[in-house]
């Protein structure tokens, strides 16, 4: 160890028992993005890594080569050996990666250009319109599912009656893959947005009821008992004890479920008329504009991750009692108006 460090400096670098300090945590989090990016860059920019194709710059005397053509390296070498044997002019070219693996800078550029490029066909949506369409589809599907799923889940978790009358069927139904209902949804709801929203609903709802029911069931029963000995009963136990006791966990469940809703998006968007970001990705792939394809896929991730971050941040704001610190954290938003006071936590001396 470095001599300047105190002897007690812990060496739990792997973090078996302790969380690393915040700065190292942040560095590791950044690294988790940098490492895959570095791998991708290496494959893209180091010429002798992979690069299985050769782009022809001069065809020489090889008959079926032409300038700009990309051929497998083995073919290129075979033809040039043949040319050397026959003493004809060999072809020239440099190694490239296949078009479906564009280098990072091309994808980065596509993040901007994709928004600026007008659609090729008249009546086609711009990228931002496609994205907006996707977000709308997700949101409606998720909202519809939550309006029904959250109350049912809470009832199911709180009362055995509701649990037994709905969960066995839901357990069965959740194994039916949502895409299996695609044809039905189109037949019933048409070819535009409703069947897509329905797919997201089917994919989310059944899981939602079960997940939330389980969360509510985990509420410590002594909270309910304590409330009963204080005179609470009936619906008041649900509203004033069970729901507040579970609300933080329910909120966390909702964040995870929203992530699941996104995974059904692509399936939902190929149902009926293809729409949204899926349509954009498909069109761009058809035009062999692969940087745009990657950019669009990455955008889904960015939207998902930033929504989750925003929700996590909002959660700190909604549930002040869940803050880890023993002192109340810096007030945010509404709490500036209604702030709980920070308190010292030493035991008060007997009077």
């Amino acid at each position, binding site marked *: 160890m470095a001599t300047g460090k105190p002897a007690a400096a812990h060496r739990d670098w792997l973090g078996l028992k302790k969380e690393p300090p915040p700065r190292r945590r942040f560095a590791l989090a950044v690294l988790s993005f940098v490492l895959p990016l570095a791998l991708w860059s290496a494959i893209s920019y180091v010429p002798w890594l992979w690069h299985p194709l050769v782009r022809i710059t001069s065809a020489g005397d090889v008959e079926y080569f032409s300038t700009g053509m990309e051929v497998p390296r083995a073919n290129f070498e075979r033809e040039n050996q043949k040319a050397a044997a026959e003493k004809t002019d060999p072809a020239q070219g440099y190694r490239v990666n296949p078009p479906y693996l564009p280098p990072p800078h091309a994808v980065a550029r596509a993040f901007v250009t994709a928004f600026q490029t007008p659609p090729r066909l008249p009546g086609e949506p711009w990228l931002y319109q496609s994205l907006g369409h996707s977000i709308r589809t997700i949101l409606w599907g998720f909202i519809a599912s939550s309006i029904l799923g959250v109350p049912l889940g809470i009832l199911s978790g709180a009362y055995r009656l509701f649990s037994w009358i709905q969960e066995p069927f839901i357990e069965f139904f959740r194994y039916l893959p949502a895409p299996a209902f695609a044809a039905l949804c189109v037949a019933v709801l048409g070819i535009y947005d409703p069947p897509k929203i329905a797919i997201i609903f089917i994919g989310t709802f059944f899981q939602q009821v079960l997940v939330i029911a389980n969360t509510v069931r985990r509420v410590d029963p002594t909270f309910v*008992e304590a*409330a009963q*000995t*204080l005179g609470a009963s009936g619906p008041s136990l649900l509203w004033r004890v069970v729901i507040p006791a579970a609300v933080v966990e329910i909120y966390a469940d909702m964040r995870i479920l929203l992530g699941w809703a996104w995974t059904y998006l692509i399936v939902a968007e190929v149902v009926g008329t293809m729409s949204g970001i899926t349509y954009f990705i498909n069109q761009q792939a058809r035009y062999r504009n692969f940087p745009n394809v990657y950019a669009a896929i990455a955008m889904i991730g960015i939207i998902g991750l930033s929504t989750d971050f925003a929700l996590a941040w909002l959660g700190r704001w909604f549930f*002040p009692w869940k803050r880890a610190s023993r002192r109340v954290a810096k007030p945010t938003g509404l709490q500036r108006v209604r702030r709980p006071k920070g308190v010292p936590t030493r035991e008060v001396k*007997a009077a």
Partner: protein
Amino acid sequence: MTPPELTPPQVPLRDLVPDYRELSPEVAARFAHLRERPVILSIRGLEKSFGHGGSAARALQDMSFDVHRREFVCIVGPSGCGKSTLVRIVAGLDEATGGAVLLDGQEVTGPGPDRGMVFQGYTLFPWLTVRRNVMFGLRERGQPPRAAEATAQRWLEMVGLEGFADAYPHELSGGMKQRVAIARALANQPRILIMDEPFGALDAQTRAQMQSYLLQIWKNVEVTILFITHDLDEAAYLSDRVVVMGANPGRVVETIENPVPRPRRPDQFISRSFLSLKRRLTELIQPHDEAEDAGTLPISKLTDAADTVE
């Protein structure tokens, strides 16, 4: 203050301390006065068994005792004797399979605010501030927010935590949480306060502090206390009477009138009357032969255990 007779270890303790039934005149007068007060809680032939038919396990068998107004009754017993089952039935959280629990002569059928309860675990609602925790029962009973807030403030002052009214429970220490729990239960002005090993999770120092807090509160508030503990010192220090329970099935073995005079002080822990009660409780809870076996595990000395340590 150590009684000099205690120092020679050869003399058995039982010859040095008086009989636990010997009450000083003041204590005897106190009990005579106490017995004249009305009965608040009456346990009548209480039975509880789990399971059905032949395989049913009896947790409680024919338990009967009374608690008078303003009395402090402790229930002690070996682990598994059904202390918790008993209080849960009294609180209305479990149902008895026989007998009855009468509160002011009315049979108890379910949980209610007339029987306040302080649990061993911390059951403050973590989503409510300390003030709102104390207000919970009051609001539940329909008190308007302003009035409930004022009442809560008074009870927080009573337990010395008015400065923490806006804190959340996770910001408090264990002892403070239990004080809030006591305030929360008392704010409802229950007929009886049931405490199920409330200080069991606290360290020895905090526990001693809480015991004297509780005595202070009890002195100043019109409340009857039914206190469950497995700590014999705690029972002897706090109680007016001790109900000793036996296990398999849970039953009342003896109800003892505490010979230690009030007001209680920590230095009474080595008084003769305290030790006489403690000795009796120990005898009842750990019968003599069992007490000797209990600490002995069938371990033979290992060959590489070189030095004799005892």
